[in-house]
């Protein structure tokens, strides 16, 4: 600390922050990869079915506690379902819905962002007005209303996540396009007779890709939380498909008696969100530190 204060504080601080963020990013990467692996290899990593009930084996504690068994490493819930298996298969639900929804939202948002940025005029204003309108809603309430109306299913949950998640892409991409399209290389391309589509595809999209890549993990983290919230409120992927949010909701009565049924799915959500967020932050610092102010 004394060094910082006396000699070249600015120079000393910057690399240090980068090192920290690098470690966080590595950690985030490891967690993300591990989670992907658990989701993909869930059938290999678990011995019990995530939905099979056995009331006779209900409410067993984790393996390391008295009364626990190796067959149920993280214990069982009130219906005798294996908690570890439900978390592992729940990772599939969570990752699938949140990643697919984030990609879907990105596709929609990027498309609208390009249109709004490239063709400023009336279309642009309409799209940006729509963005402002959407952002004025409490998004979780909007998502709840959508799923409640359409009926709870994995597709509808994704749809709700997409409908409430595209605005940030549209806004950021529009800003990038507005900046880029007045650049000399775009003018040059246009002078050489390139069509709008070609300009967008060849010149603008590659330049906007960084922003999109940086946004994606941050948005995925947000979607994990939204998906878990929807599930917690009973409007997520319907049972018996395991999902972390629903595990929390179903077991909250048992939280004070059988801690393992709620603590482990809660931890799963926390670790997943932190991991993906750290990865996203690291990517941002690496790819485009200027975005720190934007995101």
């Amino acid at each position: 600390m004394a060094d910082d204060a006396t000699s070249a504080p600015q120079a000393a601080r910057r690399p240090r922050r980068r090192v920290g963020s690098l470690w966080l990013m590595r950690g985030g990467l490891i967690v993300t990869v591990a989670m992907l692996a658990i989701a993909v290899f869930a059938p290999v990593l678990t011995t019990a079915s995530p939905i099979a009930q056995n009331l006779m084996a209900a409410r067993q504690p984790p393996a390391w506690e008295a009364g626990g068994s190796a067959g149920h490493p993280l214990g069982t819930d009130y219906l005798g379902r294996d908690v570890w298996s439900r978390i592992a298969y729940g990772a599939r639900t969570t990752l699938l819905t949140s990643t697919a929804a984030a990609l879907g939202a990105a596709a929609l948002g990027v498309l609208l962002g390009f249109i709004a940025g490239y063709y400023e005029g009336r279309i642009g204003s309409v799209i940006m007005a729509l963005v402002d309108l959407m952002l004025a809603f409490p998004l979780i309430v909007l998502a709840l209303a959508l799923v409640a109306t359409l009926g709870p299913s994995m597709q509808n949950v994704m749809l709700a996540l997409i409908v409430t998640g595209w605005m940030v892409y549209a806004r950021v991409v529009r800003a990038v396009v507005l900046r880029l399209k007045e650049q000399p290389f775009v003018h040059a391309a246009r002078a050489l007779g390139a069509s709008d589509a070609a300009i967008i595809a060849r010149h603008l999209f590659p330049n906007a890709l960084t922003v999109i890549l940086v946004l994606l993990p941050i948005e995925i983290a947000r979607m994990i939380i939204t998906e878990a919230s929807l599930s917690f409120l009973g409007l997520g992927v319907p049972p018996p498909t395991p999902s972390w949010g629903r595990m929390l909701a179903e077991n909250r009565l048992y939280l004070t008696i059988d801690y393992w049924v709620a603590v482990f799915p809660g931890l799963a959500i926390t670790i997943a969100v932190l991991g993906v967020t750290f990865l996203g932050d690291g990517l941002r610092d690496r790819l485009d530190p200027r975005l720190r102010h934007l995101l």
Partner: protein
Amino acid sequence: MRSIVNLAARLLLILATTVAVSSALGQTVTIAVKAEPNTLDPHKVVGRQSEAFLANIFDGLTARDAAGTLVPGLAESWEQVGDTTWRFHLRHGVAFQNGEAFDSESVRFTLERAGDPDSPATTWSQINTITGVDVVDAYTVDIHTVSPDVLLPARLAELFGPMLPPVYTVEAGDDFGTHPVGTGPFVLKEWVKNERLVLAANEDYWRGAPSVKEIVVRPIAEDATRVAALIAGEVDLIEGLPHVMVDMIDSRPELRVERVSASRVFYISIDASVKPLDDVRVRQALNYAIDRQAIIDRLFGGLGRPAATIISAQAFGFDPSVEPYPYDPEKAKALLAEAGYPNGFSIEFDYFSGSVADHYALSQAVAGYWTQIGIDVKENAYELGVFQEKRGANKAAPLYVYSLGDVFLEPFWLVEWLAAGDMSRRYSNPEVNALIQEIRSTFDASRRAELYSEVQRLMKEDAQHAFLFQVDTLWGASDRVNFTLRADEVPWFYPLSLAD
């Protein structure tokens, strides 16, 4: 420095108020309930929770004792004076909490208000056999019914027969629901919606003044929060103790569990008009597939009993010789194979969370048992409100969970309810209908019991429901208070007293 002094002064002040509050608590009993009544106007209440609460402020013509037996209330006695006429002899010298006298005129006014064709009471369907009220003298009334109604005295008990003061009720108009006046053991003192409802003892109560002078009723919807409030000593009594928390309460010396067998029967409705449920063997297979006792043991701490039909063990006419379906998955599979579905079939099953009684976990368990005999169960887990809308529109899935409590302990109305035809109530068996019609007007109790036995046999055999079980109602209590529960699930605070 000054801020520290300031802080210390504030802390002292908070401490002083806390002490003051807890000493006031000395004479007050605080009770946490699942939900507060929607109103205290007996003709505008919605839901059993609200209806049952009224007994603390109002009296009916009849009442129930702790065991659930029908006993005199504001009427001292009653008799039949014709096929369709009941005569009630009213208690003398009873006054409403505002001083108005209770007499025949109050009965006529109350029942006419309930049956007002322009705005009938929300509870009117429970007493709509009434066609007219004749005042014979100041303390005698004749009540006429559309057809012989063996149930009328029970209908006019605390839930659906609370008596209102004519003059005040008209004066109060719409304010009656928040400023009620009855003849009951407690007077409403204060009602801060969603926060607390304060009841004060009615010192002139005709049964004698209640022992506890002030009761604070707090609505706490979340089960775990209610239990936490009891453990923290914030409340003395909680309604609806979850069965899984019994051990937690028992392990604390200053707390105890009060339990009573409740008449509510949980069941799955099975739509016998759709394939493959139109085959009685398939419906019976669904029944044999469920291990009722295991669900009671694991989800309700063993505090319950399997049910064979909607007729609960404490109801009139209950026939123990009609036994619940035993757990026999092999037989279930054999029946499915016989019916032509050796590999099961796919079917939708609606259930819900958020109800006063927990239907969610038991429905999951039932779905699990059906899965085990090879049925592909498509589970729809709804929030109660959404499900009720679907059910109300007659659109519930072929299989859905529900439960019914027998407030009259005279169960023919339950069977009528199940067979109503609308609102996804699909029970259909002409033989049973005929029996129910006969029961309605059979005043000979032993004959009625015979008819009920036949109803139970038929209902079990035709398997248009999978009747599951009755479970005990549990309350958590602090040793500060003496309290016993009533068998009909009415939260009746009159016998409450402080332990010394």
